[in-house]
């Protein structure tokens, strides 16, 4: 199972993603702002980063993804957002970031995390 960093400024999202991912056997660390996520994610990069795009501080989800990927390029990133603009999709694609539109079901996010975890494991091997 994988180490997952969950970043969202909405506490309900953090709470239920954590509950679900832990139920699936993952190790979950949470961050509620962009700067907190960058600090945590750069210091000890996770296998999978699940990050909301809009974070209500000076760093958005793409900033977090870039910082963590710079620290460890094998990190798998899932970007979640309620506003999937074409620009954002393009930027996400360039960074090889998986995209997920809010709202989503726990089933869907846990499937995405599972496949990202497998990919991370194969890259690290």
């Amino acid at each position, binding site marked *: 199972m994988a180490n997952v960093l969950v970043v969202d400024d909405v506490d309900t999202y953090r709470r239920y993603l954590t509950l679900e991912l832990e139920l699936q056997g993952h190790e979950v660390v949470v961050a509620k702002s962009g700067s907190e996520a960058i600090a945590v994610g750069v210091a000890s990069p996770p296998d999978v980063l699940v990050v909301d795009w809009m974070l209500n501080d000076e760093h958005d989800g793409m900033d977090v993804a870039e910082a963590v990927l710079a620290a460890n390029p094998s990190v798998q990133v899932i970007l979640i957002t*309620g506003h999937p603009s074409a620009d954002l999709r393009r930027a996400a694609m360039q960074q090889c970031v998986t995209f997920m539109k809010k709202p989503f079901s*726990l089933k869907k996010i846990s499937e995405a995390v599972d496949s990202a975890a497998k990919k991370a494991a194969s890259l690290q091997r």
Partner: protein
Amino acid sequence: MFDLSLDMMTATTLDGYVVVANPRFETTLGWTDQELRSKNIMEFVHPEDQEMTAAEFAQLNQGMVTMNFQCRVRCKDGSYKLLSWHAVPSLERGIMYCTARDVTDDEQLFRTFAEHNNQVIWMEDPVAHRTVYVSPAYEQIWDRPCSSLYTNPQGWFDAIHPDDKERVESEREAQQHTGIFNAEYRIVRPDGSVRWIRARGFPIRTATGRITRLAGMAEDVSDRHNLETHLRHNERLATIGTFAAGVAHEINNPLGAILLAAESALKRLDERSVIELAFQDVLVGTERCGRIVDNILKFSREESLEKHPAELNSLVDHAANLFARRAAEHSAVVGFELAADLPSLLLNETEVEQAIYNLLENACNAGARQITVRTEQLAEGVSLAVDDDGAGIAEADMPHLFEPFFTTRRGRGGSGLGLSITHGIVADHGGTISIEPRAGGGTSVCIQFAATRANTHKEPYDG
């Protein structure tokens, strides 16, 4: 000089009988001095021009001078020439001294110009209500023969769309006094198609100011009109787009939370703490959705809210008290400059408090540190202003401020409903709201309430 003049010169009696005419008459019209003598000028005037010529004579007989008076005069060969007259009466001698110049070529020039123009150019005799001239563009635009206007000068008006007739009619009435006509209207062509027309009319006056002709132009502006309609339609679509995106965003967040909480609880039915938490989140989320729906419904609310006589200053106090905690969170200070002895107004207290609260909230969200609420007695009501020293509003955002769900803080707590709800509340009170930048930065929002006429309860206030 009389014999050499390039203009026609004649002396007539005050009622128009020729006393003497110079040789230029023969050159221009073919009539000799002998043939004209003792004849009345009126005999030579085109029948259609006789009425206005008689009117001109009447003025001359009151001692007024004629300048540039135009009428058609018959030549010896039966054709007509357009003459432009100057005349001076000598009432004591019973004589009129007249000069006339042949301006037929000038008119020809005008016609050539008019006939190659894709605007309708027209000229009307306001006394005889007769069409003097209409250019061929009339046939293209109105799709009716020009000749129909000569037999029925009302023809152009009869073609006007029934919905526009009244408006054009009142414009025509105004024209009776000013001579100026300016209107945009639709016409219905014989095949049922509709064209938009922009028409302008103006008077042609003699030197003494008498209106001898009404002239004007009418052009087909359907293309421009269709473009404008198209643009307005697009603008409305954009507003609806903003509205829809706003609703989606506002509803999606609590909806997402409800979805996750319910799904999570179902998977952990044996963990009481998770289920409790999940139900809490479902409650919070659904309440939030309910509030959003309430706010949306405010835009479709048709009946006016109940209003009672209230003191605006005490509503300001109350709203500011409710806001105190928010102000502290934003490190903002709210100051007051409240006018004493304001008349009481018919207000819905809760709604007006919400309006004031919304303005304070906006000021804080713009980063204001100092907010001042002012009330003031006006000649015809009371004003309430909220001034702040915040970031101000970008000019490009100005036209959209009152649109529901328009926000510059999407995803950062901005719902885009505050100002549009405030606007709705003010409108419901028959008031007005305006937003202006302040010199030196920040924004000033001013609400004006009209003075109350009666202290009756429950009466919808119609301003």
